[in-house]
């Protein structure tokens, strides 16, 4: 770039990491939805909440999936052609956390909240894993634009 910022101010991350993480989340959330309501589904949703919380707090590269990616997946891949800013995918983890946490919090009153919350998070995780479309990232960038306006 003219302003000499090929990589962001913090170290850039391999963009395939968050996509791998999204694939793992998608599988977990899909199983949660299929289980419907009940203790098993609620337990799986709680696992999703924990995974998103770690990703939101530490960034996608230091989430559980990020660790798996670095240790077992990335060594088998060619180096990335470019790095990406970890801030938008980290915000996406926060969005996932909010959605699944709401499902978990509402579940004693509304059992259907578990599969619904899992389904909402699943759509985002699936689109990210399958097409590289990060919904949370787009929200983050939109918020940045609005804040500047």
């Amino acid at each position, binding site marked *: 770039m003219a302003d000499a*910022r090929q990589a*962001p101010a913090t170290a850039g991350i391999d963009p395939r990491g968050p996509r791998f993480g999204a694939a793992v989340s998608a599988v977990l959330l899909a199983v949660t939805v*299929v289980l419907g309501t009940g203790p098993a589904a609620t337990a799986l949703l709680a696992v999703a909440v924990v995974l998103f919380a770690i990703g939101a707090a530490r960034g996608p590269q230091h989430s559980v999936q990020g660790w798996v990616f670095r240790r077992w997946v990335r060594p088998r891949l060619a180096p990335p*052609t*470019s790095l990406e*800013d970890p801030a938008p995918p980290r915000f996406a983890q926060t969005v996932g956390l909010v959605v699944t946490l709401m499902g978990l919090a509402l579940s004693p009153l509304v059992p259907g909240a578990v599969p619904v919350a899992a389904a909402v998070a699943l759509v985002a995780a699936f*689109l990210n894993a399958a097409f590289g479309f990060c919904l949370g*990232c787009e929200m983050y*960038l939109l918020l940045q634009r609005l804040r500047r306006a």
Partner: protein
Amino acid sequence: MDLLSSSAGRLATVALLLAVASLVLLLARRRDGVLRAPGRRERVTAAELGRALGATATLLQVSSPGCATCPQVARVLGAVAREHRGVAHVEIDATRYPDLVRRLGVLRTPSVLLLGPDGDVRARTSGSMDRAAATAALDLAVARG
């Protein structure tokens, strides 16, 4: 709903939901890299950019921090510019040129504006752009003269 009370029903609903979401995304992405004529006469000067324009054309790329596809588009446009005489690739950070970006109505990054030798906006695209689309855009703009 009966459909949602069985796991098979839930599985089918999830599959349908994901299929619909995929379709919506793919339809939305078809606009990426598609050339659009500018809505009204616009011009970008070398002075505004602080960079020289190309003698024949300029591929002005508007990027932003956190834009995942911008580096890849920059690589493509840089290569295309090098292959064509008098064509410059200029990449700017939208956050550093807020007035210009607002005036040009750029809402997405990456956005690419094809400028003529005087900086008049000949065409624009948004979203990801591959080499074929970039070359086609350039040929079109240069042909229009």
